[in-house]
């Protein structure tokens, strides 16, 4: 029996906090676990598969998390490939459940990046004593700087305009205005984006994601079992992963992990791009959205500027993207991949009120981990309801 459709997301929870100086990462994860298990109609005693990652969990972090939760899982996976980790966890969980190695898996994330004043995008580039890092650290490589180099290349090669990138930020903000827990809900205009200060040219302040605290949880089980639980099962129809870097033979800075991961996921699911009702894609920066949509195959590389224009990626458009408001406006605690699958699940269950995509049956979620333009990972899920 194929992995496609064998397992399902049975419960989700997005922690509503955006500022949690009074909480720890593990506490946010535990509160999220409770939320997702309640959503599914399960308890912590049902969990035998543990998956999790955060920006501060070290080599034994997943074991410490098991200790914190007093769990004794039969399957454990602390894969950390950056912000995309949680989408990889969902596919790993599906594979483990399908192989009979666990029955109920929980995927966890928590972060207090904002209340700990972590300068995620612009504070790197010094202090590392790792010889491998010395090829970056003398140059003050920032996260935003690396994405800016991708944007610069895209603009130079294809004539992509700052206004087109700005429309992505404007659209995410419009979606956030319909999300009661989003951090930034006041609508903005293209002019607002273009007149915000340059952080790393050509990216402006409002081309960049926000920094927040937050966390979430996802419960995965077999589709058969999920059918007996509280919520409509959201089936895991396709999944794929990838790693891209700038080493020998690297094809191009505009080829990202979404290409391989997307092809694998769409191939497993056996669906077409035109079948997709909504897309949740990692929006660390506006260019990330444009490049991801190109690499997932929704348009050709170079056509992303036109594709994101004219309302196409907004609610009511041809391919609504990031209905929660994304990292650009809702929340970005450093590794926001888990929220992509959580919002996709809520949309497919029809629970999103004002920002609900009508009759949503099929969604794609793609996370980028690490840094586009340097080394990064990609993980794609195709999710669907009957």
């Amino acid at each position, binding site marked *: 029996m194929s992995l496609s459709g064998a397992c399902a997301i049975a419960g989700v929870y997005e922690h509503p906090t955006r500022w949690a100086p009074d909480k720890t990462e593990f506490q946010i994860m535990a509160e999220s676990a409770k939320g997702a298990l309640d959503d599914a109609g399960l308890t912590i005693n049902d969990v035998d598969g543990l998956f999790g990652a955060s920006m501060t969990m070290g080599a034994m972090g997943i074991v410490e998390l098991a200790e914190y939760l007093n769990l004794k899982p039969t399957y454990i996976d602390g894969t950390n490939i950056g912000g995309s980790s949680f989408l990889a966890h969902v596919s790993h969980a599906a594979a483990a459940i399908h192989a009979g190695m666990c029955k109920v898996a929980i995927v966890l994330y928590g972060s207090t990046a904002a209340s700990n004043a972590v*300068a995620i995008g*612009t*504070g*790197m*580039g*010094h*202090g*590392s*004593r*790792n*010889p*491998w*890092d*010395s*090829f*970056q*650290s*003398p*140059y*003050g*490589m*920032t996260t*935003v*700087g690396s994405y*800016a*180099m*991708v944007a*610069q*290349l895209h603009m*130079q090669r294809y004539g992509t305009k700052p206004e087109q990138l700005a429309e992505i930020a404007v659209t995410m903000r419009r979606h956030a205005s319909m999300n009661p827990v989003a951090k930034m809900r006041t609508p903005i205009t293209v002019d607002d984006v273009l007149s915000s*200060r*340059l*952080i*790393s*040219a*050509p*990216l402006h302040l409002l081309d960049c994601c926000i920094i927040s605290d937050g966390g979430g949880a996802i419960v995965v089980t077999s589709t058969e079992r999920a059918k007996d639980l509280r919520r409509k099962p959201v089936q895991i129809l396709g999944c794929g992963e990838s790693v891209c870097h*700038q*080493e*020998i*033979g*690297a094809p191009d*800075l505009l080829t990202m992990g979404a290409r391989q991961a997307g092809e694998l996921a769409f191939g497993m699911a056996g669906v077409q791009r035109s079948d997709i009702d909504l897309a949740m894609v990692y929006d660390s920066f506006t260019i990330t959205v444009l490049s991801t949509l190109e690499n997932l195959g929704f348009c050709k590389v170079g056509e992303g500027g036109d594709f994101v224009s004219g309302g196409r990626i907004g609610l009511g458009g041809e391919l609504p993207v990031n209905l929660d408001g994304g990292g650009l406006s809702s929340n970005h605690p450093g590794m926001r991949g888990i929220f992509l699958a959580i919002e996709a699940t809520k949309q497919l269950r029809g629970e999103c009120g004002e920002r609900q995509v009508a009759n949503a049956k099929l969604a794609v979620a793609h996370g980028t981990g690490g840094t586009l333009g*340097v080394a990064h990972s990609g993980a794609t899920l195709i999710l669907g309801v009957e």
Partner: protein
Amino acid sequence: MADLTHPKVHASWETRGYWEGAARGELVLQRCRACATVQHKPRGVCATCLSGDLEHFVASGRGTVYTFTVTHQNQAPPFAAACPYVMAYVQTEEGPRLLTHIVGVDPEAVQIGMAVVADFQSQERTDGEQFAVVRFRPAD
């Protein structure tokens, strides 16, 4: 743009040939004797065929700007004081792309495709190492 003193480089036995070459004013790359791949960053094996039979060689130091960004915000010292500075990938004549800075030019005048040559900033160090950081400047 304020003059930037780049943070200290840390070398392993795999990478010191590059930094010592830079201190001599040479852009040093690696070539695999088994499959002729030219590679950067330097390492103990060929990243194409995993052969350990590698040689260092002095590259031309010439290349073109592959892409770049003018950095206006970086909280980390010493970069904060050096903004705006130009971070770039340079496509070398020999093949590898190097992350670097473009210096000796108004940041607003930098263009993709611009011809550049390697430029070296020696590091003042107290640990006995002689290393330099590789930047690029417009070719004459």
